[in-house]
Each structure stands twice: as C-alpha cells, then as structure tokens.
C-alpha cells in the first residue's frame, strides 16, 4: 500500500492534467485563434462551439491542482512557490478568458475589448502553462522539503520555448475542433491553419525532444540506455505517424479525424514527458513517495474518485453528446 498508492495517485493526476490539456486545450485554442479569425461573425460561431463546455473543461485544472495538494502536499508546497509568478499570471489570464466568454455576449461597445481579452487570456494562459511545464522539466531547487530557489529561476529560454510550443499545440487542437464543429468558410480557414499548425507543433516537439536529453543527463539516460531504448523507440515513430495521418486527413477533407489526430499528438508528447519524468514529481530531487500525503488521506479521496469519476465522465459525455454536430449561425448563445 505504501508503495503503490502514490503511483496510483500520480497516474490519476496525470490523467487529470491530460484531460485538462486536451479539453481546455481546444477551447483555449479557439481563443488563441481569434488572432487569425477577425470577423465578428466567425468569432461568434467559434465561441458558440465551446460555450457549453469551457467551464467543465477548466474544472480539470482544479482537479489536477487540487489532486496534487491532496495526494502530494509536499510537492504542491514546493512547486507552487517555485512557479509563483507564471502560475499567478496564468490564473489572471484565465480570469480574463473566463469572464470574456460571458461579457462579450452582453457587451455592446466594449465587445472588441472582450474579444481581445479572450484572445490574450487564452494565449497567455497557454503560454504560462507551457512555461510551468518547461520550468518543471528543468528542475526545481529544493531543500528540507521547501522551495529553495529564486523567484525567476523558471525564466529560461527553454521554458519560453515550451510556452510557445503549448500555444501552438492548443491552437492546433482549437483549429481541428473548428474543422469538426463548423462548416463553410470558417471550417475551410480552420483547415488551412490546422495544416500549418501541425508542422509548427512538430517543430516544437522536435526541439524539446532534442534539447532535453542533451541538456539533462537523467533524461538522456532514461531514453538512450539499454534496454529502455528498445521499448521507447516507437514513441517518436508513432508521433511522426500520427502527424502524417493528421495532415493526410486534413488534406482529404475529413472532419472529425483530424481532431483526434491532434489529441493523439498531444498524448504522445505527454507520454514522452512522463517517461522522462517518472518517478520524480519535483524533478530532479523529490519522488512521488517522498512527497505523498499519509495513506489515510490518499485512500479517503481515492474512494471518492473511484465512485464519482465514472459518474462525472458519464455526465460530461452526455453534455458532449447533447451539443453534438455542427454549430450553425444564429444558434443560441443562452
């Protein structure tokens, strides 16, 4: 029990973060794409495709953060102060993004400003999530179970590249989501952008994949030692294959499959990170076991997760089913 409970919890938090990145990823992506979709008609439609979902999608972020606190309070207590500034900026960006959804629908003269808030909020939220990710990959300085680094330790070129990469990734999810959920001129434009974005995302994935093993010995050892390499070589091959199919499906005019290819790319990138990372939760020093809450706390909430998460997934599935199909013009916001 002492051994596997933290592993189960690490997996759960991993799932919550992946769910967040995919689900809020596409609606943040839609916001990011406001930069290239400038007509009011398109923007209204774009917002309508995500309006019923964004609030639920954002809840996975609370589950991820809350789960980290529940299961690994000592990791939470190191990571949050270490990433203080990017996390606060991400939260403020999400504040703007969230209220902009509602405000733009009731605003008149200030609507262009709330469109800017939605775009900038989505973009900065994605950027700082990437920065936090990059900051974690680089490692966090800790001593005696507390953060022991400086306020700007996270601010490196590598973290900024990760930030830009996440923006591109979310934009790809958003563009393929629009291919699936809209039609006509809007869908065609989204398809064009999605093709470009696949290339951009691949470039960022390649940059991070080359940079991390070169800069960090433990990651190099994880990937390029035997027998690990024999098991791990399919990960990059699979990534290339998924990207190829995503491109092909976009070119063939498929409407649903490109979105799932984008999700596939995301999951493979994520898998690569997990492989580089585990079992550290505060790289490069603290593991899941060192930072775990007492078993009584982990078990108490685990019971709740096992009972409630299936129900949550059922009603979330119901919502996606209810609002299935293409979103058409004039169809109801509120």
């Amino acid at each position, binding site marked *: 029990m002492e051994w596997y409970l933290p592993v189960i919890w690490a997996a759960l938090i991993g799932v919550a973060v992946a769910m967040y990145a995919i689900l809020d990823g596409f609606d943040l992506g839609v916001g990011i794409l406001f930069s290239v979709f400038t007509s009011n008609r398109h923007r209204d439609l774009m917002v309508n495709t995500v309006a019923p979902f964004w609030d639920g999608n954002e809840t996975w972020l609370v*589950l991820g953060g809350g789960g980290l606190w*529940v299961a690994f*309070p000592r990791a939470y207590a190191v990571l*949050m*102060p270490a990433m203080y500034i990017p996390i606060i900026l991400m939260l403020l960006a999400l*504040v703007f993004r969230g209220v902009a959804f509602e405000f733009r629908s009731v*605003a008149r003269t200030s609507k262009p400003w709330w469109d800017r808030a939605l775009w900038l909020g989505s973009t900065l939220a994605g950027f700082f999530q990437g920065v936090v990710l990059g900051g974690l990959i680089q490692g966090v300085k800790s001593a005696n179970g507390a953060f022991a680094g400086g306020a700007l330790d996270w601010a490196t070129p590598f973290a900024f590249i990760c930030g830009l990469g996440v923006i591109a990734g979310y934009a790809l999810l958003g563009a393929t989501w629009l291919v699936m959920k809209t039609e006509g001129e809007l869908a065609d434009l989204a398809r064009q952008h999605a093709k470009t974005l696949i290339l951009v995302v691949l470039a960022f994935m390649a940059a991070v994949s080359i940079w991390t093993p070169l800069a960090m010995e433990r990651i190099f050892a994880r990937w390029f030692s035997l027998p690990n390499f024999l098991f791990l070589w399919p990960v990059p091959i699979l990534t290339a294959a998924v990207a190829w199919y995503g491109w092909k499906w976009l070119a063939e005019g498929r409407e649903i499959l490109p979105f799932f290819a984008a999700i596939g790319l995301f999951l493979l990138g994520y898998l690569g990170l997990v492989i580089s990372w585990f079992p550290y939760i505060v790289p490069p020093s603290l593991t899941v076991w060192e930072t775990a809450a007492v078993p009584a706390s982990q078990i108490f909430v685990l019971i709740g997760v096992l009972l409630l998460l299936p129900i949550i997934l059922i009603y979330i599935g119901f919502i996606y089913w209810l*609002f299935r199909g293409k979103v058409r013009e004039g169809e109801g916001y509120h």
Partner: protein
Amino acid sequence: MDLDPVLLARMQFAFTVTFHIIFPSFTIGLSAYIATLEIMWLKSGVERYHLLARFWTKIFAVSFAMGVVSGIVLSYQFGTNWSRFSVFVGNVVGPLIGYEVLTAFFLEATFLGVMLFGFNRVPPWLHVFSTVVVALGTAISAFWILSANSWMQTPTGHELKAGIAVPLDWITIVFNPSFPYRFAHMLTAAYLTTSFVVLGVGARYLLAGRHIEEARTMVRMGVGFIAIVAPLQVIIGDLHGLNTAKHQPMKVAAIEAHWDGSKPGDFHILAWPNQTTESNDFALSIPKAGSLLITHDPNGLYPGLKSVPPSERPPVPLVFFAFRLMILIGFCMVGAGWVGAWLWWRGRLFDANWYLMPAANVWWAGFVAVFAGWTVTESGRQPWLTQGILRTADAISPVPAGSIAFSLLLFILVYGIVFSMGIYFINRLIAAGPAGPLIMPPEYGTPTRPLSAAQEAGREALGTGR
C-alpha cells in the same frame, strides 16, 4: 524596501477571498431561486415564471463566471502563498477540497452548460432538472468548503505527528464541532442575500411602473422568504455564537470587547476597544447582557481577553465592529421582512412607495452582512490560521515579498476591471428587464436568440428610458 511577506500574503488572501465570496453568496441563492421559478413554471405553466427564470439566468451566467474564475485562483493560492499551510494541514484540509471538486465543481460546471445553452435541445423537464442540479452543486460546494474552514476553526479527528496534522477519523473531521452551525449560517446567508437582490429588482420595477406582473412576483417571493428566513437566521446565528463561545472563547471575547473575565460581561451596543490600555475607552452598554447572551445567566462568567497574553488575541476593534455591522444588518433584515409581510397581508405591498423605495436600494445588504460575518470569524481566529495548530505567521510560502506585492497589485488591477465591468453588465441586464419575445417551446427547435432579444430590449430601454 522592507515589505512584510506575511502582511502582504494576508492582504492578498483577504482581497481575493472577499472578491470571491461576493459571487457564491449570490449564485448559491440565485440558482436555487431560478430552480424554484422553473419548477413553478413546469407545474403551473404560467409564462411569467418562465420569463423570470430566463431573465435571472442571464444575470446568473455573468455572476457565475466571475465566481468560477476567482475560485480557481483561491485553490492555487493555498500553494503559492501558503505552502507551509499546505504541508502542515494539507493531509486533512486537502481531501475536503478534493471532495468539493469531485462532488460539486464538475456537477455545476457541466450542468451549467445545459442550463445556459440547452434550452432548445432538451425537454423542459430536463432543463429544470439541470437547473436543480446546478443549485444543488453550489450547495454541495458550500458544504465542503465550510467543512474545511470549520475544521480550521475547530479542528477535531486528527493527531499531530511532528507538527503535521494527520487524519484519524474522517467523519469527525468533516462534521467538526462548528461545521453544522457555520454551514447552516452561510447557506441561509446566501439565500437571504439573493432574496434582497430579487426584492430590490422587483421594487425597482414597481417604482418605475415597468414589468408590473413580474415585479409583483419577485417582491412577493422576496418578502415572503425574508419574513420567514431572516428571523430563522438570527436563531441560527445565536446558536453559532454559543458554539463559538464553547470552542473559540477569545473570538467571543473580542466580539464582546470583554477584557476582564472575572466579572460578568456587559453587552456593548457601541464601544471603542483600546488594545493598549486593555479596556474600552467608551462604552454604551447593557449591564450583564453579554453574560445573559453567552451563558444564559446574567451573572455567568466567560473568559476575557486579558486571560491570554496580547500576542494570543485577535484584533479586537475589527472583530468587534464587524460583528456589530452584521447584527445591525441582520435585525434590519428581520424588520424589512416583517414590515413587508404586514403590508402584503393588508394588501398594500405594491403601492407602499415608502417601503419599496428603500427596498429598491438595499440590494447590497446581504453582501455586506456576509462580508462582515466572515471578517468576524476569520479575524477572530487570529493569530491562528488553524486554531491551536498553525499560526498565520508560520504558514506562508518561502516567496520574496516583492513577488507577493507584484501579484497583489495585479490582482487589484485585474479584479478591479473585471468586477466593475461585471457590475455594469449586470446592472444593464437588470435595466433591460425580463422583457423580450418569449422562447419558443423546445420541440419546435426554432433557433432562438433570447439574449440578443434582451439586448435589443435593453438598447431600447436605455435609449428612451434614461
């Protein structure tokens, strides 16, 4: 520059939590009110209820968004600003927040989608059901967060291992001694807060001679609810106070500005507590009434502030005055409810401008009372963050003061913009009123845009009405 990180972190938390609590105080009650209206519509088929439900749903959407985004900030602030708190009591408090996410956040966020956008996609009963689920979700959320807060006030069911609180019995932790009272008090406060907003909007329309039928419904429902629940809240509050006297005597001593515990306490209607002289500079008091209230015996004794060293005392004037503000509003609420009920009984409620005029202008009463009440309970717990376990000064993150000051400024700036725009938009929705073409029944599947219809109506109202 020599900034105190503890003070800054406290200012930041006070600011963000005060901003946040405004919205749950309103949306917990408003979702229940909308659910009530929709059930009444479903049962009676009276279109007025439907129209009102749609009207308040628009206001709910704007308020709920502000509540959600400001709430997410709080869930991360435990780590960014209070990392030692996260470690020392995280094993106990963390799981309670975890259950809040699992049982409430997903529920309300998901069914909100149906409530706001599902009108022409689901049958009416399912829409009503979704609204009820959202209302239930907000109440469940209150359940867990108040359990967590109450445990910080009256911790039980745990043991300390090397200074870290470790759970022993979850039932005892969740249902800690102050929880039932605090939960009942806050939930009732949220419902009362919303009632005053509903009453205020109804009164505003009646005075302006607009939306008369809808306004009458709102005024009736508001007055009826307040007349019954405001007195109930006084009783719940009293029981809550007795519970506090038992578990947090210094909080009650600060509430009553009671310095010397060797004598029975007076009730100070007004006083100027002086922390330097450890006495009240001025006091207008009812002799022995404090003892009567707290011990139910005019000669009963209860601990005074001087029974502990000054470093163990809460900030007395803040707690003292915040409490009096809350009580004052509470009794005014009872008065407003009873006067309104009497007018209603005499059949004069809708013509009594002397009653409607103030009613239209005190929509904020509940918000101020909630704010004052939380100031009492949170400041009254000081210097502890978790009573007897962790001091506030020992709970903060090893983060430089500059980072906290920087983020505090950003919060003030961003929340300032968001809040003023939110209030502006809500006010405009209220000015537009529950007018506009009715929604087509869902089975016809006609694309309807009630909101833009309401916007049109609002534009007209604004263009000609002011």
